[in-house]
């Protein structure tokens, strides 16, 4: 590139240009969030901690069938109940466990659930369901799925037993996950 090219190559203009870019970033707004004090707010369709309500569940096993990794274990039995004179058989739920430590929160169980409002849904705000001890604490039985013992709900979110509805945007899954919310 000739002598002058060699000399010109000595003066690093483009390196200075690079320095300019990083220099400008010195004064730009920072992106860090101080996590424990400031908690990031998930979006309204975030697939977070499970919500479950036993009354709405019609024990049809479709959520267990839809789950790709079969971590929803359901056991039920039939009971005779009297409904206005006629003998009717009704399915009663014995066991409804979700092995949350293996769950990948794909949301297929919620999509498969035929009940309206949903019996099993993914809440959109609570994501802090970690535990120190793997096997017990993250193996959610029917009771724990409802009263959320051992789950640190996001501020303002109540457990399903205390009335969290699936279409409640702060806690439940946005009803609009299916259709655009009115």
């Amino acid at each position, binding site marked *: 590139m000739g002598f002058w090219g060699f000399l010109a*190559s000595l003066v*690093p203009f*483009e*390196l200075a*240009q*690079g320095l*300019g*870019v*990083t220099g400008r*970033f010195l004064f730009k707004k920072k*992106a860090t969030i101080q996590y424990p004090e400031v908690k990031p707010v*998930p*979006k*309204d*369709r*975030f*697939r977070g901690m499970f919500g479950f309500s036993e009354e709405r569940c019609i024990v049809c096993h479709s959520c267990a*069938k*839809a*789950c*790709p990794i079969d971590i929803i274990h359901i056991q039920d039995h039939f009971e005779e109940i009297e409904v206005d004179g006629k003998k009717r058989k009704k399915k009663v739920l014995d066991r409804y466990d979700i092995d949350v430590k293996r769950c*990948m*929160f*794909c*949301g*297929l169980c919620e*999509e498969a659930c035929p009940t309206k409002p949903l019996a099993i849904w*993914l809440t*959109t705000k609570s994501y802090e369901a970690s535990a120190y001890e793997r096997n017990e604490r993250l193996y959610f039985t029917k009771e724990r799925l409802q009263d959320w013992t051992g789950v640190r709900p996001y501020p303002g979110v109540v457990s399903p037993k205390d009335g969290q509805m699936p279409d409640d945007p702060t806690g439940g899954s946005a009803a*609009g*996950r*299916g*259709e*655009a*919310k009115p």
Partner: protein
Amino acid sequence: MGNLEALKPFPDSEEMEISFGPQHPATHGVLRVLLRLDGERIVDAKPVIGYLHRGTEKIFERETYNGTIPHTDRLDYTAAATNNQALVGVVEKIMGVTVPPRASAVRVLLAELQRIASHTIWLGTHALDIGAQSPFFYTFEEREKILDLFEEYCGARLTLNSMRVGGQPYDLPDGWTDRCRTFVDQFPARVAEWERLLTTNRIWKLRTVGVGVISAANAVEWGLTGPPLRGSGVKWDIRKVFPYDRYEQYDFEIPVGANGDTYDRYLVRMEEMRQSVRIIQQCLAKLPDGPVMAKVPKVIKPPKGEAYFSVESPKGELGFYVVSDGGAHPYRLHVRPACFINLQALPEMVRGLLVADLIAVIGTLDIVLGEIDR
């Protein structure tokens, strides 16, 4: 690089065997490369893979067709949207389902956003491996904005599980298109900023020009696809050759490199990010309305037969080959992984280079071990 014998000052000095990885900061996952070094010059390189093999194709055989979709998120975990697109595409092809235009548009939006997100990871880690620390944080800042858009649409940031056979499970939330437009409008300025940091930087050029060269003929012979192929000058992109999801409606160019070295592949990917921005802008401009899901039975049972379908994933041609026996579970579902086949050309590209160049070449191939090991 000239023949290596001439370079051997001490004829009796034997070569040094080094195992590079699988725990190594620059192998983008659990890849191990057995290196035979003469001093710092690589005499031979032999990639060893399989550390992340989870038997995905075996698991596919027990899942329902919609149940396989979360597993495809974990193949190329930096590009979940295009993995989903390929899987649902092949099942729709074998069932003869036509997807409504709005579903195609949403898929194109998700795929192109995913292409940008995947390329930002590539640029961040590639620059970090070659020593420039800051681009990593700038690129990931932009990627966070894309992940927010994904989270808003389907509820997950990385493993999206956002498509179903026959269309999209849910429609775009209100205001999503505006937020997407604001992101896309400011993105080219960010890419220009990164280019000011790297493209003309003499150290970057010294580390990438002429490194890991592969000729066009060799690239086709080695079955390279995606940016590694286009970097060597072969103008070939599935979105143009076999348009899917109505890609023929959008006009965009296919960036092509000249001499197939790391610098050209870098330029190709940077240009691809800009082209993706153009596609998204066009898609947002004429977003069709209407249903997002075709009439598809609840339990997907494709007819007996086989079909292959591929998409242009950020890494190359990602194909799915499904064989159905008429049941609700795929009889055989094979993944044609882009990175697995691109990695095969690594020894050819690296022979005779220095150890530092191996890092640059691994970065430029943009490999993800999830897709390689399946």
